[in-house]
Structures are given as structure tokens and as C-alpha cells.
């Protein structure tokens, strides 16, 4: 299948070569289809690649410019991530989606120096949301700190608006990724008066007996989870084992795919998580996806991931990349955009509900509007819940807004520290 796709790319490259010389739009995909995190890496990489294939096959590329996707295997390993970055950046890569907090941290200074934008969609360095400091880094549609405050807000609404004396536990991957929300949750606990219980789980997270024993002992009212990979499955299974009420167990958007909930069987029923995009394959775009990509034998992977949470997430990442490229073409009046132009396009990105409908994705995701000051997007989220009988996620709330008065000062503080450490001047005329 992959060979067929390559042959197709080669063929299109040849036909293009015959006509006027068009440069292709290069999008690297730093994926991980091997290693301990592969079950989560595969659907995302498939969704990301398939959306680009769809644009190529159906529309003949972005505004007629063909897309060239270069995949590179990172195995969620930072050393390989750097190798991937260095090997693909020379090909004219327009935007990097590192898909790992560790790789993102390494690439932030490198890509900034090379003038290539990074889109760490809902992960990576939270304070990169401050566009005044991080010119080339974007993390729309939301950050971990947004997510933490949205979850707290949701819990508060469940509890009738009062969290005083409640106990909330955070089960987190003991790494940069898992530690991200702690500051925010501590600030929020001062504001709302709940007690915060921190429970780290070491990589890869297969051993959580003691963690959940502690939860059984401490009896928190709610448990939040910042996990990834096998850690999610184990946590959900352990929670089911101690009969923790599943609807009081809420994960971040990376702890909520089918891979995480199905292994626990009926025990996972009612598990909740925050998300920023729709679930399932009940969207008009899927008809095209099946027609132009899957049935044509051009799917990136085995083609069995359509409609899963992480496939949809890969697709939404690709959709924003395509829209940003379109915007960049519009701003600069050329179809052969450079990474710098792509950055301008990302900064001017504005994908609202009307545009989503045109793309065949009505109600699929939150409206995103990026500006020079804010690279973090709207910071909106929804809560989804798992139905173990139907083996399906369903969205159970409307859009919830992040607690800006808590999150924004934290972003300011952290990004300013980075700016002074690295002698960066503030942009955006202030």
C-alpha cells in the first residue's frame, strides 16, 4: 500500500515535472509506529497522512499545489527525533508536529533558529502560547494548563459550583509531560479550596498498584489523569479494580482513546476525558475519505483506524496545517510558500464553524483563531465519556472555557523567564 502511494507520488511528481515547475509543499510527519507508544502513535500518524492524501487526491493539493508527506520514525525517542528533524528540514519542511513533549522541547530553539514553525497541538511547552516570546511555536487549540482548568471547572459544575473541602488527585506520567498541569492545579486549589493529591507514575506505567492503593486509602472525590501509552490502560484497569466511580475519573486528551478503555472491558464504563474535537466517523468528510483514500488503496496504515479518537486528532492537526498553508498563500500571494510564510499563515489562522462545514467537518472541533499575542488558540474543551457497551465515546458537554484569569498569568510568568534566559525580545509591538 505504501509502495503504491509512493508510486503515485512519483507519478504525480513526474507529471508535474512535465508542466510548469511547481514546488511541492513538504509536510514532515514525525511518527512513532514502533516502540512502547506505538498503539497511540499509529492512529495519529494515519489520520495525519490520510488527510493530506485526501487533499491531494480530491482537490489536487492545496490550491493546486501538491503535498509531499515525509514520514520519519521517532519511536517517541528524543535522539531519533533530532535525527528526523535534521534529515527532513533540508527538504523544505513547512511545519513540524513533534508529537512528543521531549522532542518539542529540543526542537523549540532549533526550529526557531532555522525559521521553521512548530505546531505542538495541545502538548509541548505550555508557555509557548505566548506568541510574543515564541515566534515560531504554536500550540493551539489549547494547552495543558487550559485543560487542567477546564477539568476543574467541569468538576466544580458537577459539584454544584463548590469545591471547598473536596479532594482531587492527579495521577501523572512522571515526566515533563505529566508534570505540566501541576502548577496550574496548585493555583486553582488556592482559588477553589480543594485539596490536591499528587501521584506520580514512572515510565512506562505498568506498575500502579501502590498508586491506586493510596487512592483507595485517601478516597479523593475526583481523580485526574495525565497519562500516555500503556499507563492509561493500566490506570483505568486499576481504577476499575478498586471500584473507583468511573464518572469521577477524568483524563486529559491524551488519556482517552479506544486503546485505553477497551482493555478494561465493562469496568471502564463511564470514564471521562477532555477533548477538543469530535468523536466517531459521523462526518461528511469520511465519505470522501473512504472514496478517495481508503478504497483507492492509498491509506497510510492498515486503514482500520478511521473514526478512532487519535485518528481524528491526526486529521484535525492536518486540517489546521492545510488551512494555515492556504492562509499563507493568501497573505503572500504565492503558491510556493516557505516555512516563514507558513508561520505567517499559522499566526493568521482563523477556522470557524462556517469553514469547518465547508470542509465537511461540521461541529468537529473548536473554532480556532490565532493571533500574534496568542499562539495557544481559544483554550476551549469538551468532556467526552466512554460507553463500554457500545464501545464508543460520546461528547457530554458543550464547549467549556479555560480559567483565563489563572492560566494567563502563569503563561506570562513562564514565558518571560524563558525570554530573559535566552535574551528574546518581545514581539507584537509591546
Amino acid at each position: 500500500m505504501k509502495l503504491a502511494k509512493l508510486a503515485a507520488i512519483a507519478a504525480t511528481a513526474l507529471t508535474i515535472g512535465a508542466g510548469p515547475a511547481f514546488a511541492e509543499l513538504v509536510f514532515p510527519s514525525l511518527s512513532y509506529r514502533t516502540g512502547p507508544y506505538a498503539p497511540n502513535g499509529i492512529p495519529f500518524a494515519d489520520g495525519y497522512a490520510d488527510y493530506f492524501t485526501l487533499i491531494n487526491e480530491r482537490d489536487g493539493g492545496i490550491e493546486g499545489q501538491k503535498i509531499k508527506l515525509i514520514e520519519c520514525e521517532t519511536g517517541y525517542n528524543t535522539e531519533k527525533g533530532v535525527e528526523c528533524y535534521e534529515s527532513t528540514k533540508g527538504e523544505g519542511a513547512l511545519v513540524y508536529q513533534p508529537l512528543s513533549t521531549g522532542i518539542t522541547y529540543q526542537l523549540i530553539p532549533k526550529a526557531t533558529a532555522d525559521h521553521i514553525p512548530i505546531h505542538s497541538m495541545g502538548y509541548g511547552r505550555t508557555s509557548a502560547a505566548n506568541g510574543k516570546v515564541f515566534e515560531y511555536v504554536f500550540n493551539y487549540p489549547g494547552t495543558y494548563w487550559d485543560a487542567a482548568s477546564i477539568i476543574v471547572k467541569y468538576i466544580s459544575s458537577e459539584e454544584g459550583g463548590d469545591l471547598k473541602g473536596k479532594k482531587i488527585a492527579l495521577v501523572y506520567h512522571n515526566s515533563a509531560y505529566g508534570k505540566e498541569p501541576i502548577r496550574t492545579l496548585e493555583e486553582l486549589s488556592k482559588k477553589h479550596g480543594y485539596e490536591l493529591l499528587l501521584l506520580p507514575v514512572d515510565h512506562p506505567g505498568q506498575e500502579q498498584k501502590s498508586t491506586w492503593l493510596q487512592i483507595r486509602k485517601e478516597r479523593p472525590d475526583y481523580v485526574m489523569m495525565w497519562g500516555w501509552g500503556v499507563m492509561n490502560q493500566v490506570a483505568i484497569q486499576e481504577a476499575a479494580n478498586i471500584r473507583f466511580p468511573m464518572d469521577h475519573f477524568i483524563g486529559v486528551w491524551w488519556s482517552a482513546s479506544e486503546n485505553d478503555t477497551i482493555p478494561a472491558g465493562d469496568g471502564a464504563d463511564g470514564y471521562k476525558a477532555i477533548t477538543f474535537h469530535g468523536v466517531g466517523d459521523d462526518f461528511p468528510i469520511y465519505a470522501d475519505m473512504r472514496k478517495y483514500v481508503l478504497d483507492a488503496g492509498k491509506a497510510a496504515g492498515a486503514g482500520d483506524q478511521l473514526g478512532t479518537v487519535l485518528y481524528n486528532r491526526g486529521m484535525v492537526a492536518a486540517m489546521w496545517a492545510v488551512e494555515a498553508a492556504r492562509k499563507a498563500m493568501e497573505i503572500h500571494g504565492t503558491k510556493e510558500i516557505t516555512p516563514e510564510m507558513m508561520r505567517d499563515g499559522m499566526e493568521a489562522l482563523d477556522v470557524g464553524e462556517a469553514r469547518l462545514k465547508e470542509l465537511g467537518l461540521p461541529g468537529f472541533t473548536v473554532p480556532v483563531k490565532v493571533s500574534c499575542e496568542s499562539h495557544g488558540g481559544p483554550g476551549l474543551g469538551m468532556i467526552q465519556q466512554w460507553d463500554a457497551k457500545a464501545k464508543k465515546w460520546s461528547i457530554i458537554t458543550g464547549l467549556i472555557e479555560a480559567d483565563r484569569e489563572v492560566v494567563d498569568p502563569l503563561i506570562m510568568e513562564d514565558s518571560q523567564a524563558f525570554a530573559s534566559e535566552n535574551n528574546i525580545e518581545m514581539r507584537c509591538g509591546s
Partner: protein
Amino acid sequence: MLYREAGDFKTTYRSDQQTFPIKSERFLFWAVIALVALAVPFFINDYLEKAVLIPFLVYAMAALGLNILIGYCGQVSLGTGGFMAVGAYATYKLMTGFEWMPMPVIIILAGFITASVGIVFGLPSLRIKGFYLAVATLASQFFLVWLFNKVPWFYNHSATGQITAPPREFLGFTLTGANAEPYATYLFCLGFVFVFAWVARNLTRGRIGRQWMAIRDMDIAAEIIGVNPLMSKLSAFAVSSFYIGIAGALYFSVWTGAAEVTEAFGIDKSFDVLFMIIIGGLGSILGSLIGAAFIVLLPVLMTNIFARWLGMSTEIAEHMQITIVGVLIIFFLIKEPHGIAALWRTIKEKLRLWPFPH
């Protein structure tokens, strides 16, 4: 033919005992050094630097260090990742705490800090041996990683526990950060590896090295002939940790620029470096370099061949690469249990006699 030894006389003890006793080999050595130090910097690019040469040099440094401990002194250690972490975090604290300090001084100091930590964790080696010592050093691996993850002082209370190397210059060349020139970082790392490989070679054939080897071969006999096991074991731990600490320092500051202890310095690192010296050759300086090249460069080469050149899908290429490297490791261990360096020694002996082997 390749070795023309006619007329290569040695008239002094000194010239007979030199590292490269054969004239043509000495010539080859200096030619290689000239090539890597004078020619490579002119065509090095970002990819060669960050994905090929610096990784090789960093791991070569770590392998040299571990080889001193295991290959020369016979003390099995699985704490390499932890000691690299000490080097990296020492560098981070020195870089952020003393901004005026020049980079080479920071790296050397990080080496000394790691050496002192190494001595502490080397103390059990006075009582326990072999596999049991391996388990004791394994404890140091887990303890050190836990420590750097647990105590916020080590990562300057950053929200995530990630450490990031700020940009630093030395003699007008930027060495760390995103704007560092590939040739500058390459020569910086090459300098360290060259100097310390030289030092290691001379340490191992001097008094200290002979004590280490005596301990390795039979510690009771060594003690009876007057070798102090305390001094020689602890000095092996100190020197080895010094090298590994420098490797960790270069890994963090020059190569990756950012690190997170659980991900970068986990147990896998310890095993990787151990495999390097076993495949390259225990008790051999050349073996450390060959082993590092084998483990670091072969996967990169294969990724380039399978995924980029032949256009295979990335996961098949990755799985092929893992399989082939594994098969090659087994092949080399069966064909030459003493490592590729020993293979090279055998070939050299044959070449010296060729074409008249009898």
C-alpha cells in the same frame, strides 16, 4: 604488502613500547586524525553533526569510561545512565549558576563532580563482585534518576523538570544552543574525545592501569603482590565516572540541548553503553570507539538506506533495522567473543605476514 616493516627498526625501549609500534600504522593514525580534525569541519552540516558525528563522539566518550571500569578493572557496572545524568545536571547547574564560566571548564568540572559521585557508588565494590556488583550499581542508576526527577533544585524549579542548555560561547564560537555552528561543536567534542582517549590509553599501560588489570584478572593474587584493592577499585570508579560524566555533559549541552532525566538517562542508556564495549572489545580503547560506532551509526545508516533510499515504509524499515542490528550483534559475538577490536587484531596479524603466512 599493506604493512611494510622492513627497515622499521627500534633501537630504544621507548620506541618499542609506543602505542603504535609499526611505522605505517603511526602514519595511518596521524592521517586519520588530520582528516577528522582538519578536513571534516569544512564539509560538516547540521545532519552530519547532530545525527552522526556528535552522537558517535558522545557515546565513544561514555564507552571509553565504562571500558576502563569493566574492561580494565573488571568491575561490572550498570549505572552508566545515572552517571551521565550526573554529568548533565552538573553542567546545567554550573551553566545557569555561573554564567561567566567557560564551557571547557564546566565540562571538566562536571566530570569531577561525577567522579566523586562514582567513588561513593563504587564503595560497595570493595565487598561485592560480579553480578552482585552489577545489581548494586543498578541501584545507583535508579536512585540517581529518581533524585534528579524528585528534587526541584536540580532543574531550577522549572515547571516540567526539563533542563535546557542556554547558549554559551567560548573564544567567540557558540558551542551550545540553536545557533551553534556544526564545525565548532564537532571540534569541541572531538577535542575532548581525542585528549581523553589519549589519557586513557596511557593510564591503562601505566602503574594504575596495571593495578586495575591485576585486580581484574585475580583480585586475591593482586592483593598478595601488594596492589591496594581499595585504591585501585575506587580509582577505576572515579576515572570511569569522570569520562561518563563528560559524556553526559556533552550529551546535554552540545548535542541535544535539552534533556529530561527519565527519558534521556534511563536504564536503556546503561545497557547501550554496555553493549558498545562488549561488541567493540573489553579492555581496548579502539574497541570502545568501534563499539560506539556500531551501536550509534549502524541504525542511522540503515534508516537512511531502508526508509529514505529504498523508500520502505517507516515501520518496516525500523523493524528491519532492529532485527539486522540484533543479528549482527549475535554474529559478531559468536565469531569473535572478544569484540570487533580483537577481530581487527587478528586481521592485522594476518596482514603483517601476508603474503607469506608461514
